[in-house]
């Protein structure tokens, strides 16, 4: 039965996340935005332990539930994916940068959950795992990975440089994309877990950024970095025929089907945060967006708010849909990109508009509006830019390969 309300059961988790967002993140959001490069904020350490514990108890988003959800024909499920969207939204509402800095739950963990063996999930699930895909020369072109992995005895030897690894400095480990053989293209790209402190792995620098300043974004160099053979995620075999190759890379790309809606949720949280502050500031001046009159019979400010709310709601529902599909074992690559595309741009539009309509208050560091407008920009870029999402959606719709529609 079509119902787009959040069930009470999930609302509880949502509220808990909201409390973390409002009670833990908000009070320190400005502080850590200003400090920038620093060790993991003390305020987050305990939270990280708590969340890890929750994860293991199945309260937050453990992989076991994720597997169950894959089984079809068990009736509709509201599972870990939906839960993940709801809590991510609330945490990002508090502060997206702090959320990404909570030790214990990295994007690498999502990759391990998606393609790792049960053994790997247990072993690396305890680690705080960053994700390292992008390279200085390749941007959104995930298939152009130049970092190499060569098997030498019982070890993989990694060489190459990665950039834009969120939590790459503070994390316990990094999931690294590397190719086993450049000449074999996408199919030869595999992901590997490299634990911190492994010789040959070096954090070259942490980026100075416009937003998400508390979150560390590391450039990491691998120079003859040796890791155990068992640290490869998925099969080490390189698919031989074209179809299998495509599938193999698809497997790696599949991670995105789970992570993109999560990133969309970050945009939702940041945008809603901005919109709420804006509504409060406007209400102080007697401007209430109460849906009393038609759009064009409202004031300009009311109309702006209605438009922002409408687009935010569209982005929110698209995101929930993508997560719901994952929970119910439906392939959702297209929908994952759709929600990321819509939420990414809507998040940026809304936060920027909120700064504008609140005038000096919006632009000032006195409120978080200007911070949200800085933070929101990267959400439309990382985990696949707006343009990459559109490419993916278009290829699905038009039935095109990546060589036809470049």
């Amino acid at each position, binding site marked *: *039965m079509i*119902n787009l*309300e959040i069930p009470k059961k999930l609302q509880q988790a949502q509220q808990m996340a909201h409390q973390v967002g409002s009670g833990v993140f908000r009070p320190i959001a400005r502080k850590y935005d200003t400090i920038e490069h620093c060790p993991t904020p003390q305020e987050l350490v305990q939270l990280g332990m708590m969340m890890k514990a929750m994860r293991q108890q199945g309260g937050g988003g453990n992989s076991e539930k994720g597997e169950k959800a894959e089984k079809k024909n068990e009736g509709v499920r509201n599972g870990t994916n939906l839960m993940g969207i709801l809590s991510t939204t609330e945490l990002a509402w508090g502060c997206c940068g702090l959320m990404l800095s909570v030790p214990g739950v990295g994007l690498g963990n999502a990759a391990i959950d998606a393609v790792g063996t049960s053994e790997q999930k247990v072993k690396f699930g305890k680690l705080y795992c960053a994700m390292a895909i992008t390279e200085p020369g390749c941007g959104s072109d995930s298939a152009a990975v130049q970092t190499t992995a060569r098997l030498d005895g019982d070890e993989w030897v990694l060489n190459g440089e990665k950039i834009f690894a969120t939590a790459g400095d503070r994390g316990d480990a990094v999931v690294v994309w590397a190719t086993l053989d450049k000449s074999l293209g996408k199919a030869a790209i595999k992901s590997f877990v490299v634990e911190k402190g492994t010789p040959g792995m070096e954090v070259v620098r942490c980026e100075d950024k416009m937003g998400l300043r508390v979150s560390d974004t590391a450039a990491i160099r691998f120079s003859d970095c040796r890791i155990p053979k068992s640290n490869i995620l998925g099969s080490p075999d390189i698919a031989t025929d074209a179809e299998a190759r495509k599938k193999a890379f698809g497997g790696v790309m599949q991670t995105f089907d789970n992570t993109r809606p999560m990133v969309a949720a970050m945009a939702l949280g940041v945008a809603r945060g901005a919109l709420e502050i804006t509504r409060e500031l406007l209400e102080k001046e007697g401007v209430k967006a109460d849906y009393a009159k038609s759009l064009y019979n409202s004031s300009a400010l009311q109309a702006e708010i*209605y438009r922002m709310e*409408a687009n935010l709601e*569209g982005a929110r529902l698209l995101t929930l849909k993508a997560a719901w599909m994952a929970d119910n074992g439906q392939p959702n690559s297209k929908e994952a990109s*759709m929600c990321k595309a819509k939420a990414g741009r809507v998040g940026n539009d809304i936060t920027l508009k909120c700064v504008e309509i609140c005038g000096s208050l919006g632009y000032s560091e006195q409120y978080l509006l200007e911070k949200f407008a800085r933070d929101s920009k990267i959400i439309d870029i990382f985990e696949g830019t707006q343009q990459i999402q559109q*490419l993916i*959606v278009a290829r699905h719709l038009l039935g*095109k390969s990546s060589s036809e529609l470049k």
Partner: protein
Amino acid sequence: MTESTEPLFDLSLTEEQRITRESMRRFAESEIRPLSRKADEAAAAPAGFYDQVAELGLSLLAIPEALGGAGVGHKPLSNALSAEDLAYGDMSLALGALTPLGFINAVLDFGSEAQQERFLTPLADEKFVAATIALMESRATFEPSELQTTARKDGSRYVLNGEKSMVALADSAQFMLVIAQVEGEAQPGAFVVSAGAEGLSLQSENYMGLRPLSLQRLKLQNVVVAESDRLAGGALPFNLQRLVDLSIIGLCATAVGCSQAVLDYVIPYVNERIAFGEPISNRQSVAFMVANIAIELDAMRLLVYRAASRAEQGLDFHEQAYLCRVLCAERAMEIGTNGVQLLGGHGFTREHPVEMWYRNLRSVGLLMGVAAV
């Protein structure tokens, strides 16, 4: 999560909805779409079309069993799904098909048992019996809560004066629910006026789109309505906001259907159309336009479903309907104009339906009171 009786977040159809959708969609594709262009050019629904629609039972379903219907009651969500599916064939004809249902729903919601018997029994027919709602007035800043059409109480009757515009099927409607400001009352009232009532006159008008919908002006000069024909409350007290919101959901649902038609039409077109040696869909500007149609369309759809589902569950839905309108008005038009753009000069000719969809979709930002689901 353990099982619970509380509804989960869910996008699945019920079995009943699935079956209904299939037949609606089949009807839309095989019976409506082929008539669409002709109806637009003629600015009229083809003869016999609405009787065919009657066989779908949209009106009958809602009417109580005692009055000759199926007694399913007022089901905004199911109705919205039907609106979407029918509009996939043609938006105007879909709105026309749903127009009597809007009247029926209003009577179900706000009419007494006696009124239901009086006004619904004649509509519980195998044949299509038209009935409609007269809400809009022709001025640029029209607001449903600020009506210039008035109802003055005079003993046990009301005298109505004013002018309504964009009244769907006005020329064939047996009953019209006229919304008027009641003198001495804060809120507007709803009055059932029968066809041919004295003082009632119609003026036909042509519009940019929705041409087959027979949108007309309705002049009321001292039209007398018995007090018993005022819908003063039944299952619910009369609530204009609710009526308007349901009509917005209905209209937006048809916008979703029509926008889906655009998407499904442009995809093969851009894949087949060759320019500069390749299908034009190999170009990002074309492909991204298609992608954005799909993205915004799905967002529109989800907003419609949420508002309709809340209405059906008895939850507040004003804010959701409002946002639905805001998003759909903007995005449906964007989809309409991009649909034409993707066909280039060909899209501007009446050989292809996209120009008609462009014209029809413009209505989403302005029409009110039609096809309340």
